[in-house]
């Protein structure tokens, strides 16, 4: 087991109260596997990823749980230790919208080389050599290192960002919505690239997206998030054809499908407020199978099919 996260919590302080963005999330990730974390916008996907790489904003009011990387608990590490040993070296991340955060006045190559210069103390020339190699790996020609961000298309920028995340040969790569700003054809190119990397480098990934169909392109396992909680976890083979949790079922049937004739469904009602989430099962106000118990008691994680489901229907 490469990474094991248990009972992870991340709350943000706001004027209205604490936003429970991540509320008791547990999962594990094996070497060479890819875990997809899917769910509606605002359900806490990015926050979960940020909690793992400890990329925290200032207004965090609660941050706890266990994050074990090969038996080393990361939570007790000091900020310095975490930065020098874990972040980018062991776990790196492609942030949501990162391609728009490239510094417009610096050459792309240099920006990608920066982690090498900082973490490994390489000279600029050495670092740029490695970057050229990485660029080839992600399908960019090596002359791109000398370009400025505005001279690249969206797809090229995203490739460069992925190269940057790979500079230090991490064990785990977290990708937060890496393709959502791109056109479908470019999206397909990036997905092929990720598949290649997965195969060639044997790297483990956490792939965060709201688009299950896209995730099915690369993920071996799925974690479905709803309102800060993981409501279902299981292998792609189990979840995609026969989702157990009512939310997962709804989510899957809301996807318009090109190759079948089923009309997409939708989930009625509004997404929950994470400051004051619904009592009991957080999905109960929108759930078609809601029972009395659901609004009163929070369902436990029930083992089903080698994964778990957080729903009273399966208890």
């Amino acid at each position: 087991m490469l990474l094991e996260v248990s009972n992870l919590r991340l709350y943000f302080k706001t004027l209205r109260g604490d936003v429970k963005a991540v509320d008791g999330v547990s999962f594990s990730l094996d070497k060479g596997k890819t875990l997809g974390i899917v769910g509606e916008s605002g359900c806490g996907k990015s926050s979960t990823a940020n909690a793992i790489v400890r990329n925290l904003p200032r207004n965090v009011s609660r941050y706890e749980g266990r994050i074990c990387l090969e038996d080393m608990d990361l939570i007790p590490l000091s900020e310095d230790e975490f930065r020098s040993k874990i972040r980018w070296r062991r776990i790196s991340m492609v942030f949501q919208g990162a391609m728009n955060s490239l510094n417009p006045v610096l050459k792309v190559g240099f920006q990608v080389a920066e982690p090498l210069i900082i973490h490994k103390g390489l000279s600029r020339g050495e670092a740029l050599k490695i970057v050229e190699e990485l660029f080839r790996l992600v399908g960019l020609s090596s002359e791109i290192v000398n370009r400025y961000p505005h001279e690249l298309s969206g797809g090229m920028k995203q490739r460069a960002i992925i190269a940057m995340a790979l500079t230090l040969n991490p064990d785990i790569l977290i990708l937060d919505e890496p393709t959502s700003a791109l056109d479908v054809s470019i999206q397909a190119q990036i997905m092929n690239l990720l598949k290649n990397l997965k195969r060639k480098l044997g790297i483990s990934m956490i792939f965060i997206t709201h688009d299950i169909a896209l995730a099915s392109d690369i993920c071996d396992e799925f974690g479905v998030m709803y309102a800060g909680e993981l409501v279902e976890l299981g292998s792609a083979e189990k979840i995609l054809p026969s989702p157990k949790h009512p939310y997962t079922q709804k989510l899957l049937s809301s996807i318009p499908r090109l190759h079948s004739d089923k009309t997409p469904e939708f989930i009625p009602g509004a997404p929950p407020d994470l400051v004051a989430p619904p009592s009991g099962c957080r999905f109960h106000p929108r759930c078609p199978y809601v029972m009395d118990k659901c609004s009163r008691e929070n369902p436990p994680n029930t083992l089903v099919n080698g994964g778990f489901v957080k729903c009273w229907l399966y208890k």
Partner: protein
Amino acid sequence: MEPILELIDIKTYFSVRKGLFKTLTVKAVDGISMTISRGEVVAVVGESGSGKTTLGRTAIKLIEPTSGKIVFKGSDITNIKGDIKWIRKEAQIIFQDPFSSLNPYMTIKQILEEPLIIHGVEDVSEREEIILRALNNVRLSPPEDFILKFPHMLSGGQRQRVCIARALVLNPSFIVADEPVSMIDASSRAEILLLFRELQEKYSIGMMYITHDIATAKYFSHNISVMYLGKIVEYGPTKEVLKNPFHPYTATLINAIPDPDPENRFRERSIVPGEPPSPINPPTGCRFHPRCPQIIDGKCSLSEPISREVDLKHFVACHLY
């Protein structure tokens, strides 16, 4: 079916200044013809920058076309300047971004009232009635709860419903819907689209449904036009085109979207290489030729294919046919 909008060889070019003296021409829409009838939904799909939005805005004269002819409800509106108000009443547009297309300083009531005021519905109670009906139509109920709210108090889906309500209060006969659900959470997209479809059928509205998501077009449109770099490369009944795409570009677009399937990860996706070229200097011949997997050497890069009816009402502009 009576045609409500006819576009005949529409070209819309923008000139952009580059440096001090150079101006470049962006051929955003470059010779498009299209007919939309009452009650018909035509989807316009294509990648970013292919000119979908420009086409939609040109169709209802938010932008003046560079050349071509626009016939709306039987009258040529290409060159009219002054008397445009009836077009503004008959043709509406819904924008992609429900967050920026509502004035943040106005209440929902004021937003919905505005078209009525502009188009001379003077009676206050009549206006109120129309607004409440419109809100009910888009299922923002009870409407009384919403009329005094400001846009920032609503979720994205609710805002987009307000946009739809605004487009509907004047009983238009034609609507351009520019990616109306792309900024809405996937789980409620279907809801908005179904609502849209229901209202469109109920009032028998002609619609241009612009999207980059071919899958939603499938459920929502009768006919589909696939755009590439300012041109329509394929046009036909939606089901037909999706089942049996002729143009290589359409085929790759369709292939690029997977259905959720655990087998996906063991397959490479078939992709179009490269990125769409710039509409400033479009490739010669068939504009798709530099990326086309089935390019015919010595032909595609030289002569521009013209649109042919290959199957019943199914047109394609490609040298393969």
